[in-house]
């Protein structure tokens, strides 16, 4: 029978992790992706489960003078309802509210959504647009990594074998910031995104764009940013931004594929239109 380890502290979890046999363990928190993988396709033979759901340190949300620190084990329901998240980071409250539906959000964690590393992760675009950093705990202490550097390839992350995602840090936005989040799926609840977008646009008082950052899901092997679009927009007034240029830049930034949910052509078209809409409708 498989062994079930349920540590109460991060230190204990890290110690256990360091001793686990490679390939034969599974880390679990909310289980909304892991349990599906265990039932569908070819279930893995798992000798040891490392269950992070009973570690109070992973469940804390701290608002500081710099921003917010969200424990990796905080559920999407908590984020959706959190008054400070709603006020200062509304895109995160919005993305948490469209991840699956209520029964999923009651279990699924923000850290789990990132570590599952699906290119369609609903909360990933938001964290990219907000320039979040992630706090990773390992045998030699913790390190902070810009979230943008976390996803290395399809379902591959920067987490080393004996490391755990501990928290997500999001800074406050400067005055003049406007944001836009939208998930495009087959239906409002439960659907996996065909395209998801989060945008942060920093306007000057004269309405010129100082800087802009975008996060997208389902348009490449990983959740991704749009560096060429950001560069194009920097320093421009809205009236000088051309739809054809946006399309060209988006096309150079994303690598969409055809799959069961959509086509590459549709994704490019919709991503371009969503960027255009974000520039004009961000609030």
């Amino acid at each position: 029978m498989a062994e079930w380890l349920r540590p109460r502290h991060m230190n204990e979890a890290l110690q256990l992790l360091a001793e686990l046999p490679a390939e034969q363990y599974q880390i679990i928190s909310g289980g909304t992706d892991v349990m599906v993988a265990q039932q569908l396709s070819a279930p893995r033979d798992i000798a040891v489960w490392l269950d992070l759901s009973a570690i109070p340190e992973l469940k804390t949300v701290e608002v500081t003078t710099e921003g917010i620190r969200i424990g990796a084990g905080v559920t999407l329901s908590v984020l959706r309802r959190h008054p400070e998240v709603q006020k200062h980071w509304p895109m995160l409250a919005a993305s948490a509210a469209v991840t699956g539906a209520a029964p999923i959000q009651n279990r699924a964690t923000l850290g789990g959504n990132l570590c599952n590393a699906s290119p369609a992760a609903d909360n990933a675009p938001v964290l990219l647009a907000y320039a979040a950093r992630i706090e990773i705990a390992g045998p030699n202490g913790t390190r902070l990594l810009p979230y943008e550097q976390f996803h290395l390839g399809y379902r591959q992350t920067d987490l080393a074998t004996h490391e755990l995602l501990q928290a997500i840090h999001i800074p406050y936005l400067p005055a003049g910031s406007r944001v836009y989040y939208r998930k495009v799926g087959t239906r409002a609840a439960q659907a996996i995104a065909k395209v998801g977008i989060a945008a942060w646009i920093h306007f000057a008082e004269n309405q010129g764009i100082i800087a802009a950052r975008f996060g997208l899901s389902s348009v490449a092997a990983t959740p991704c940013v749009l560096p060429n679009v950001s560069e194009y927009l920097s320093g421009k007034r809205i009236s000088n931004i051309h739809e054809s240029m946006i399309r060209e830049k988006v096309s150079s930034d994303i690598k969409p594929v055809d799959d069961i949910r959509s086509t590459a052509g549709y994704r490019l078209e919709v991503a371009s239109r969503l960027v255009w809409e974000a520039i004009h409708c961000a609030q």
Partner: protein
Amino acid sequence: MSVKMQINGQEVQVQAPPASRLLDVLRVELGLKGAKEGCGEGECGACAVLVNGQVVNSCLIPLGQMDGAEIVTIEGVPGDSTLIQAFHDCAAAQCGICTPGMILAATALLAEHPQPTIDEIRWGLSGNLCRCTGYGRIYEAVTQASTGDTHG
């Protein structure tokens, strides 16, 4: 693995592999067959139960996480409860597969929003799929249970 839970108000001890799905423990080990397996991947809500007051999909919960949990299944909802009465009155069940999950999701919704708007009802039941009754009568039943208004 031996796990102690409270199910529908009663202490229960279960001996089963830790990665067993709560759904299978309820149906097979404990004979509580109200929770149904629909999709088996957390999309349909037919297996919904309440764990510590929150609506969850029991097909996605490993037994290993349930030590000390308080669980409510449809068998724990009294037959004469306002909600079940409202489902009767509004003819909000046809084949019945989704009904236990709908009623438990509605229970959690009404605990958080005793007078839900139609949007809150849609949201609260958004993780539960119905393929025959249609959502109109189900929403009507939840509204009736919240207001006590019966309409013919």
